[in-house]
């Protein structure tokens, strides 16, 4: 089961209208991505950390998610300082480290972490379903929403299908080893999941046809725009505008 741990909480951000959160997250991410001044970026990082504090998410789990992102960024630290041409500040054998390289990789690290923190605080505090609802309120094309929604919905089913098959392997004494038997078994497992998912998608579609589906999804109105949503939205948007103007 894919858990949406962060969405089950009670804080100002959890109760905020997801539509506001999507708008703020979008503007914030774009602004941070285009700003190039350290002062403004540090301020943005502070804002993001402030959001995390307001959202009352568990620090330990936030860190574990940041580690995943930063493990990719670490690869950039291994590459960029050595490859980007510019003023050389240190020489390591035949490799030389450039000031521009360090500058860029530091900017990337700062920006990514800021955006991730803000997104975690804003978006992961809503359930996927609420986000999808919010997107359809924004009139995002139906096809994109269906894609997003079905991917999430059937990831759950495919995952449980995988667990079932995997259990079937286990109870017959299967242990993964480095040999042909293991490779073949895993190939069968993946193949089986693909085939079953395809069949499942066909059956789901059939079931939808039986209920008169003609390509349109309907949503029941769920969100009510509260005064507190308006106020928080205005505050957050003005912070972002301030950030952009300042830099």
């Amino acid at each position, binding site marked *: 089961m894919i858990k949406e741990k962060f969405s089950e909480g009670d804080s100002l951000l959890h109760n905020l209208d997801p539509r506001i959160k999507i708008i703020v997250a979008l503007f914030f991410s774009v602004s941070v991505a285009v700003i190039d001044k350290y002062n403004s970026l540090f301020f943005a990082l502070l804002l993001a950390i402030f959001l995390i504090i307001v959202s009352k998410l568990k620090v330990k789990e936030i860190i574990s998610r940041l580690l995943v992102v930063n493990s990719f960024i670490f690869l950039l630290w291994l590459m960029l300082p050595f490859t980007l041409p510019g003023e050389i500040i240190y020489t390591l054998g035949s490799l030389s480290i450039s000031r521009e390289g360090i500058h860029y990789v530091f900017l990337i690290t700062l920006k990514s972490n800021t955006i991730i923190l803000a997104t975690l605080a804003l978006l992961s505090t809503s359930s996927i379903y609420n986000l999808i609802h919010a997107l359809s309120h924004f009139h995002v094309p139906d096809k994109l929403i269906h894609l997003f929604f079905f991917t999430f919905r059937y990831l759950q089913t495919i995952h449980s299908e995988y667990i079932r098959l995997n259990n079937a392997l286990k109870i017959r004494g299967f242990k993964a080893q480095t040999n042909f038997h293991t490779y073949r078994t895993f190939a069968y497992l993946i193949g089986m999941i693909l085939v079953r998912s395809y069949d499942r998608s066909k059956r789901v579609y059939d*079931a939808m*046809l039986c209920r*008169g589906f*003609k390509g349109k999804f309907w949503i029941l109105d769920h969100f009510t725009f509260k005064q507190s949503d308006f106020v928080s939205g205005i505050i957050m948007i003005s912070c972002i505008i301030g950030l952009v103007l300042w830099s």
Partner: protein
Amino acid sequence: MVIKGKKDEVLIKISNLSFAYSLRDYVFKEFNFYFCRGEKVGLVGPNGSGKTTLFHLIMGLLHPSEGRIEIFGKERKVEDDFIEVRERIGLVFQDPDDQLFSPTVAEDIVFGPLNLRKNQQEARIILKETLESLGLSGFEDRITYKLSFGEKRLVSLATVWAMQPEVLLLDEPTTWLDDETIIKIIQILKQHPQLSYIIISHDKNFLKETTNSIYLMDNGKIKKL
């Protein structure tokens, strides 16, 4: 649910039907079956005898290689003919995970009625009535994939029930259910004596409680027991 049309009117008439899945022997050959309004039919037979296939042929999800399918007095041949059939006959799938795809129970239940051109307000009334008659009141905002298996079954029945079909086709409605939920389904069916339905089941007691006649399907043929 209200009874539309008169009793004993032939709703489904299948004559001389042949059907085979590719690379396999015939499931049906010169198959004949008819079903009247008000009938409550149980369908039994060994695995692979074509019970589910019959449902899918009635709903137009599969098409026969030969023969004639007449539903509500009209021959049904191509996809467009079956749109009306699907609006008036409700099929509940064997696996509720195939049926439920919306985030919340409420949305899954109104999916059908909204497809039937009901407006939001009417859909909400139907939602409330459906949940009440299936004993599911309070389930509106539950997340469909987080329901227990028995609840999923009842909700998937509700999604079809909400379309107020003239005929219900239930495919193995009791497998993997506990006695309590089975009794609940029996009660629901008994509380609506005007319903017409066909039930595929291996559960003899369940069929005895809910149906008037039982048909056996075997070797591509069907006969009344």
